[in-house]
């Protein structure tokens, strides 16, 4: 199986120095578990930061050199159309660029591939099939079997990246290719230093006294419940079980 992992030029969340985003290194680890031929692909002016991925289990990195402000989508699509990998892996969101998480979707559209988001586990699922596990909210998972070729984005809950080894990073090959320069996306939004915005608080709490705010924070949304005083333990147990069933949290 041929796998291409898309790598982006990220910035470290704390130091802001160039480094590959953690979730893309996690994608690398998922790919290396599949015993496949893996290549990294990056479109950008240089391999700054991205090259570190070579130390995390990647052997070859294809670098499509384009101008700093041109859209990487065109170059990536052109290359992937030519190489036709079975599986393309990407991070769920870049870290240090536009950070909108839109590129994998636009790319899948361009290549006519299906896309599945938030994957944490990938297993081979037979001829031309892949069994993947997708993260859902509240700790639930979804097991999906899908046909190849496909594009998957990886979720941060996937297994941690392989540890960095210096020797592997030295050994890894970077192939420079000429990318396609294109117009930068028009109408760039105005940018200013980030400032945290206050989160919304409950309407009833705004402006009222401290006692009212505490009450709003702790009182039942729908007041007035059932009260049983000194029931027999067996009766109490029956009541509780019926109530939990009604709510739907006790399934069985």
């Amino acid at each position, binding site marked *: 199986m041929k796998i291409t992992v898309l790598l982006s030029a990220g*910035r470290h969340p704390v130091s802001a120095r160039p480094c590959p985003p953690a979730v893309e290194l996690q994608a690398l680890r998922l790919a290396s578990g599949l015993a496949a031929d893996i290549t990294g692909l990056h479109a950008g002016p240089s391999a700054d930061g991205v090259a570190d991925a070579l130390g995390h289990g990647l052997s070859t990195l294809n670098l499509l050199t384009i101008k700093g402000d041109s859209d990487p989508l065109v170059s990536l699509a052109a290359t992937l159309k030519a190489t036709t990998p079975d599986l393309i892996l990407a991070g769920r969101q870049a870290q240090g660029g536009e950070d909108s998480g839109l590129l994998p979707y636009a790319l899948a559209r361009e290549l006519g591939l299906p896309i599945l988001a938030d994957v944490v586990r990938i297993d081979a699922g037979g001829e031309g099939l892949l069994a993947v596990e997708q993260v859902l909210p509240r700790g639930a998972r979804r097991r999906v079997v899908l046909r190849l070729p496909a594009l998957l984005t990886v979720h941060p809950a996937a297994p941690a990246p392989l540890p960095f080894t210096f020797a592997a990073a030295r050994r890894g090959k970077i192939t420079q290719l000429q990318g396609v320069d294109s117009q930068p996306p028009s109408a760039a939004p*105005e940018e200013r230093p980030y400032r945290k915005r206050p989160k919304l608080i409950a309407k009833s709490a705004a402006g009222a006294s401290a006692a009212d705010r505490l009450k709003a924070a702790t009182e039942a949304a729908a007041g007035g419940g059932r009260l049983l005083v000194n029931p027999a333990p067996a009766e*109490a147990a029956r009541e*509780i079980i019926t109530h939990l069933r009604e709510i739907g949290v006790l399934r069985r």
Partner: protein
Amino acid sequence: MSRTRRDPRTERALHLVAGTARPRLDRAAAPAAASPTGRPRRDPRAEVDSALVPGPARRRLDRTLRQTGLTGQTGHIVHLIEPEIALTAPPRIVVVEEPAFLVAAVPDAPGGRLTAHDRQVLGAARLLAEGGGAVVALPGGPVEELGGAGADRSQVLAGESEFDPEGRAAALAAALRRLKVRHAVFPETAEGGDLARRVAAALGEPLFAAAESLTARAVTRAARGRRVEQRATPPRLVSLTADAVAAYAGAPREAREINALGEVAAVPRAIVSARVVPADPATVPLSEAEFVVSAGNGITDFERFRALVAALRATPGASRVVCDAGLMPRAAQVGASGTVLDATCYFALGIAGAPQHLQGVARCEHVVAVNTDLHAAMIERAGLAIVADAQEVMPALLAALQAEETRE
């Protein structure tokens, strides 16, 4: 000074009792018209009278207004209960007959119910629709409370099977094209965010992802590793983070069903099968758990408590006293200095309900409490409250669950 002068003559005339030959004044009765400023005057005597608790020989006043005396005719107190009367009148439904433009909102509505985030998305759509627009809700399945949340129109756009993101995105893109919506707002959740990006790719338009503030004139989002804030006039496609915009709070709207089905383009479907695996309650983090059973200082038998948690398939929690004593791990602490829950149901055993603890339970929809103290705050908070010894209820619960299992 601009204060109006008192006019003793008219004031006196207001107290005149009609129907007697001789002019008679009733100074005790409240004047028909209020004071010259229009504000009703307080009448301390009548307030005290209405707060009097009937019955006991000794005078007792209840100033919490819980007494039946609420119906007293003093201006002050009647004024207080007025809003309640207004609430009972059926609210008028707002109808937008000929909208100047449309704004779409795409709620997740898991299980056919709007989440708080969905309501905020509809509230944001309402904001963008100010000035003659109408909000179209496009959920993935039937949802009831759309009108109250601010939707003028609605149309269900479902995929072909239970998990068909490709089909739903294609139907949505077609509907947005056909309705020519000015804006479409999505929640930035796992499902909503995925859908928003699929639709953006299908329409070939940019998406303003994860907006952190939204008004009719500007939206902002974080970019470049949360170091800069991007600001723009609201584009066509916006996805909104939680707690950024208030939910709609006005009069209910009609949520009239329309036909928004557009020409759906063929999409490559690659999903062969999909199956949801529920979370393992024993390992799921407390903040994500759906059902939490929690022990307080009233619990002494922790072996039995753990057995009960396992039998109920719940996630274990505890109050601070229990964690401080080392009887439960610190990670299990619920409350202001522990974990704030997002659970559907919270089951508290032997917990008093200190304010610090209740803050951790504030977002839970249902609370069940077992406590020996009738006056515990937890009992007041609970939807099902049982005043009993938790040490006896726990084995009874375990026995009942076991009996059910053997019967099956």
